[in-house]
């Protein structure tokens, strides 16, 4: 079936057999919305992290020199998007460095610092401490207009045994998104639960069903509101505080329902909710990617943070033809065979990204596509995972055309430029009101190749 607006063909997805669950992702019916939707679409933000660094010993990821973007082997799957892409060198996360007394911890420090620019406190206990992450700053701003402030998605369960280091709480490994310095946000890895967060328990996006559910929820809340009023009158002072918490929560939920109501004429593709986690990784990725695209498309949220796997991921990728675990291969100590496998895994991941970008490109949004309005940062929290380095982080950005960003270039920043400077620049471009600083940031970045005109502040040596 063809999309009347762009004339592009949209592939019909076949049923996926996950863990005994049938997943129906029929045709995306993306035809009429262009007329129904406002023309100036907001910018969406996305942060995609892949674990265990990205091989770049021989410039497999990006080139050495600033200038026109040349795609190394790992970036080849993204060739179609070259003109929207920028790669950066010189960015790092100094907060990932270990302080003298700290035991190991390169992985958890790295992934914690990636979006927060703060130093993860070494503890295995409940007193974890980092900092607010860039995506949550964006979420706070955009969340006023969307049903969900942000989504956090990962392709790894938080329960994998043996994947945390001794001195650091698993909480550091299980997320890259922090609401504040003590509150890591859980990353959803279950397709079904993710779907339900967006569309409720009905298991479908059928607008009639959703409207009926909303109606029910509203009636329930109305009825409960009466209870609350009556109860409050009888309570003592201290207890009224508790009931007021409940009332505040009710109002928040009602607001979300209202927003959903206001957006109900927005065309949502008819979908059945997914089931279990597919065994094959690429199926799993595609399933979650489809739901994330849906979240952007329906403006349920404008901020998505995604992890291809938890930092230090042990996952293996049998579909690539070998069963060695990712983490073990990244400690290659120079062995050619291991390096080759790492490159395969890294390339596979960018291939997954390409699927996602392609889907965004094929989803109309206002007078263009979702991809035209989405600013995505993709990369790893470590650069050389063999040596656990966090300097010269492998980072790319997709967002050429947004707010004057010029794609198709590789920009080389002075070494030790904090990656948080890039995060702040992204927030600026997306229209988040000016943020003074984020973690170890020193200023903004000028997204132009051959630019010596980096913010004076970021030239400061660290």
């Amino acid at each position: 079936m063809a999309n009347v607006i762009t004339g592009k063909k949209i592939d019909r997805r076949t049923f996926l057999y996950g863990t005994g669950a049938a997943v129906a992702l029929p045709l995306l019916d993306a035809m009429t919305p262009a007329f129904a939707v406002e023309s100036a679409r907001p910018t969406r933000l996305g942060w995609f992290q892949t674990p265990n660094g990205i091989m770049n010993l021989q410039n497999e990821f990006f080139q050495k020199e600033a200038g026109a973007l040349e795609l190394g082997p790992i970036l080849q799957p993204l060739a179609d998007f070259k003109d929207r892409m920028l790669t950066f060198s010189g960015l790092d996360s100094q907060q990932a460095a270990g302080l003298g007394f700290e035991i190991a911890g390169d992985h958890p420090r790295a992934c914690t610092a990636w979006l927060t620019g703060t130093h993860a406190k070494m503890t295995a206990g409940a007193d974890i401490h980092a900092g607010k992450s860039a995506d949550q700053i964006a979420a706070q701003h955009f969340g006023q207009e969307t049903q969900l402030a942000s989504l956090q998605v990962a392709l790894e369960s938080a329960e994998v045994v043996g994947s945390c280091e001794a001195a650091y709480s698993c909480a550091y490994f299980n997320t890259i998104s922090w609401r504040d310095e003590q509150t890591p946000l859980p990353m959803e890895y279950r397709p079904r639960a993710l779907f339900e967060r967006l569309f409720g328990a009905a298991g479908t996006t059928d607008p009639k069903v959703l409207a009926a559910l909303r109606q029910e929820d509203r009636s329930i809340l109305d009825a409960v509101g009466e209870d609350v009023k009556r109860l409050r009158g009888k309570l003592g002072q201290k207890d009224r505080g508790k009931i007021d918490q409940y009332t505040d929560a009710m109002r928040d939920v009602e607001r979300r329902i209202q927003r959903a109501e206001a957006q109900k004429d927005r065309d949502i593709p008819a979908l059945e909710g997914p089931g279990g986690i597919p065994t094959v990784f690429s199926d799993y990725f595609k399933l979650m990617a489809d739901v994330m695209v849906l979240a952007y498309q329906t403006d349920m949220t404008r901020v998505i943070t995604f992890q291809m796997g938890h930092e230090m991921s042990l996952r293996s990728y049998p579909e690539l033809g070998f069963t060695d675990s990712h983490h073990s291969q990244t400690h290659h100590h120079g062995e050619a065979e291991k390096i080759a496998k790492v490159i395969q895994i890294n390339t596979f991941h960018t291939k997954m990204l390409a699927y996602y970008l392609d889907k965004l490109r094929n989803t109309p949004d206002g007078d263009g596509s979702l991809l035209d309005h989405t600013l995505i940062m993709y990369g790893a929290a470590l650069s050389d995972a063999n040596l656990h380095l966090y300097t010269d982080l492998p980072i790319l950005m997709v967002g050429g055309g947004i707010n004057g960003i010029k794609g198709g270039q590789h920009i080389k920043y002075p070494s030790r430029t904090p990656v948080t400077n890039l995060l702040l620049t992204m927030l600026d471009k997306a229209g988040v009101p000016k943020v003074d600083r984020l973690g170890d940031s020193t200023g903004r970045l000028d997204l132009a190749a051959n630019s010596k005109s980096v913010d004076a502040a970021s030239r400061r040596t660290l």
Partner: protein
Amino acid sequence: MFRTSTSALALGIAVVGAAVFWRSSVVPAETTSSPTAAPFDQHMIWGTYKKYCDTCHFGPKARGNVNLETLDLSNLNVNGATWEKVLRKLRGREMPPPGALRPDEGTYKTLVTAITTERDRLADTRPTPGRPTMHRLNRAEYANAVRDLLGLQVDVSELLPPDDSGYGFDNIGDVLTVSPELLERYLLASGKVARQAVGDTKIPTAYQTYTVAHGLKQDDRMADDLQIGSRGGTVVEHLFPVDGEYEIAVELQRGRAGELLGNGRVRKLNLRLDDQAVHDDFTVPANRGRRADINTQVGKDTEQGYKVRIPVKAGMHTIAAAFEKDTVLPEGIQFRQRFDAIQSYFEGVGAISIVGPYNVQGPGDTLSREKIFICHPASADDEIPCAEKIFTNLVHHAYRRPVAADDIPALLTLYKQGAEAGGFEQGIRLALQKVLVSPSFLFRVELDPTDVSPGGVRQVSDIELASRLSFFLWSSIPDDELLAVAEGGKLRDPAVLEGQVRRMLADPRSQALVQNFAGQWLFLRNIPAVQPDPAAFPTWDENLRQAMRKETELWLESQMREDRSVVDLLTTDYTFVNQRLAEHYGMKGIWGNDFRRVAVEDPRRRGLLGQASIMAVTSYPNRTAPTVRGKWVLEQLLGTPPPPPPPNVPFLKEDAAHGKLSMRQRMEDHRTAPQCAVCHKIMDPIGFALENLDGIGKWRDLGGDEGTEPIDPSGVLPDGSAFDGPAGLRDVLVKRHDMFVENFVERLLTYAMGRGVEEYDRPVIRKIARDAGPDDKWSAIILNIVKSKPFQMIQTGEKGA
């Protein structure tokens, strides 16, 4: 001692850190109030104060900020916190400090008795029962309430987020907040629960996966519910909401990198529903783990075959998947585990998932429908009256009180809305959702009667008492009998109250006390999260993790149900083991995965401090932590926590030279600094006494990094009591059993009241401990808590504006 310290910090710590009732080997029998004692002798107290205390503790610049001038000798309820501090110091003989003029033993005893008696007398005649903040049900309570109200087992870890804790427990009213995310989850949960409970024939297809713990060895029969002759596998209980078809699928167990486990033999996989085979045995092809035939794993789901789609009747059913047992086993290590790989000779079951319903046939006949539909409308005219009956019954139980006139109309409105769209049962379903989200369900409401003035005290109503009882003993709503007794006004009759308490303790639901009270008090809830380093502890595995937790839970439950003395927790000579745990403990001749009661022959292993679970939650991932263990004993068992460490304490040096030293020697370094030594002198000897039990509770005679350093488990406490090893430490603790019992009472009271313990509760705690003696039985302590003023009464609050 404290006079020679140079820094104020050291001074402060020296004063406080000499939390040294170790000085006293006197069993504080003097805390017994004597009701026949002379009235409080203000003159004597004043004289003693002038002679020994007021040099330092007088006026705004009083030492340690303890200004005894603020005390009112005519009313020991004023500044109660200071009085309790005074009492604590006197009981421990810590004040006046050594070096200052001190009273003789007789004077100490008189002082303590006098103050205790007077404080306790006032607590009795002018009680301060406190006022817990309105208490939101935590998720365990929510699950149990749903279970008892609707006959439905729900998995709250899926439905609701974890609750915050305070004072060591997650049922503290002040700490349990309501956020918008939580309310959304309540709404979502209400829909799922209501639809399942009612048997909604339009219920959306659900996907439920039960995952077997990663790394669990499946080399033997795993559970009693699995067949004899089975090997490995798992059994789950699942609620099928309606009559219909369901797809049941089995996934195989995978290793760390996602590879299938197994070593090259064809297997038979058996799948049963309620012990009936639902299919011919599946044939599982030979898997070779890491040397697997790549083609079987690449790009394909190799497990499309292990599933069936069968009709199932609504209700709870068990699903079991297991392999046939081998008749011949190979020799050698069958299961190797490293941090990045698992290799197993045996295939295992990784998960069971259930999808459905499809082709719904009808609502079926379930326990929850029985509980909800106490009537069925005979005709259309009968629908509203029947709905009213149903709601009256539900509200009565869900809100734990007699139904009020304004409870029903809102439910009827919702009913009509739902019935219009989908019929009678949909109407009931929608209204039931409201019940589950209502603050009357989610909060434990205790209302002051309108004619009571604020700032006083009142007895809680019988209805409120019933809820306090059921949430204390069952973490759930009151049952029919308890409600009836309360509504009949009989609950305050002492004989009736005691009868109900005993009945409730004997009921299986009191298992909640083990799960929720003991589980948090003893840190058992941390067991799923401990991450022992496989390099340091090569024998560690998932089976051991599960077994050690089960041992302690079974053991605690037996202690409670056999109504033993709580001091037995320190000393009992039996425990529960299965084969895995027996191997860990070095016990011989125990086979199989099932747990059985055994005697603990080794006296060093008896009681709480010999259990692997306790040792595991008080260790670091790669070594023991004597300081952590010492602190745990002081805080959790004796109620005398050491003060927090100063900031910026560096970690133990982990270099090679230090590896040669024993743990004790390494930690000597950290006790040479006087401001550290003050507290570590008390904590560390306790931990060293337990050094023979390694980081996962296995006995070892040698320690150090290489396992070559001899362990010296002897120690001397600052008051001179010496001990040797775990058995010696235990004897020392038993000598201080009064402190142990008081601490137990304090913890259990915190849990029972859902609020932290304040100074005005101290006399109450002393009284409960006294009244429960000399046997100190579980039931006696629990009963005395129930009879105590804080449990029976409440302070009346300020009316809201």
